[in-house]
């Protein structure tokens, strides 16, 4: 099953990027996608197995993206304010906190979302559980510790 899904994803990418639909180019695509699928069929999915729950996770993740873009715009306005303010009111600090998320994918999504939301970047993740975070001011640290984003991510990947 994961051979077929990997092949379909690769072949869709091939069609978009090559942009030629005559039989010669399409058959080249079939050959090269087939070779890559044979070599790396277990790289796309956690534990190397495809499950149907990934499709619903993907759809829910796509629905999460508009909220994320809204947060990114807020964070950019925040950074623009800090940069353009003549006194530069920043007060950097480093905090550590523990997360309850378990799946690899949800930890990756959470770390990247932290980097993109206002005033925080992920510095390190130990043991898949402890996040070390650099905050640009005290207020954004309190916002993060309220845990709204963590709950959203947990709902997407079906963890509770």
């Amino acid at each position, binding site marked *: 099953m994961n051979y077929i899904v990997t092949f379909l994803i690769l072949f869709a990418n091939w069609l978009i990027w090559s942009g030629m639909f005559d039989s010669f180019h399409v058959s080249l695509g079939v050959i090269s996608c087939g070779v890559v699928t044979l070599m790396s069929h277990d790289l796309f999915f956690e534990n190397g197995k495809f499950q149907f729950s990934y499709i619903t996770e993907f759809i829910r993740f796509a629905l999460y993206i508009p909220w994320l873009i809204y947060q990114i715009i807020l964070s950019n306005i925040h950074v623009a304010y800090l*940069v353009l303010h003549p006194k530069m009111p920043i007060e950097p600090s480093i905090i550590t906190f523990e997360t309850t998320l378990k799946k690899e994918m949800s930890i990756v999504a959470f770390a*990247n979302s932290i*980097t*993109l939301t206002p005033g925080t970047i992920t510095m390190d993740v130990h043991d898949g559980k402890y996040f070390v975070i650099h905050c640009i001011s005290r207020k954004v640290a309190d916002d993060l510790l309220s845990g709204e984003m963590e709950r959203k991510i947990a709902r997407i990947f079906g963890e509770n």
Partner: protein
Amino acid sequence: MIILSIILIITGVFFFFTATFGLLRFPDFYSRLQATGKGDTLGSLLMLAGLALYNLSSGISLASILVSVKLLLIAVFIFIANPTATHALTRAGQDAGVEPWTKEEKSK
């Protein structure tokens, strides 16, 4: 449609401006990454989306739709890759022992 794409492009240039200004102005490595990791991601996202819209406005055909989809895919790639690169750099900084700048040190 052209006006919308012009607005998107100019907003993108503004965020690139804040990213560059932050890179020059902030006091330490981690704060500089705060500015560049965010400003560059949103700036390139907005500019590439604006260009994709402009490309569609000149006439919708298979080739122009394909080009717009490619531009949007580049934007999605940057959207995933830029936070990852930021994270890799902060981790490198932490392991190399770069000291973060704090307000107390300055007032001392």
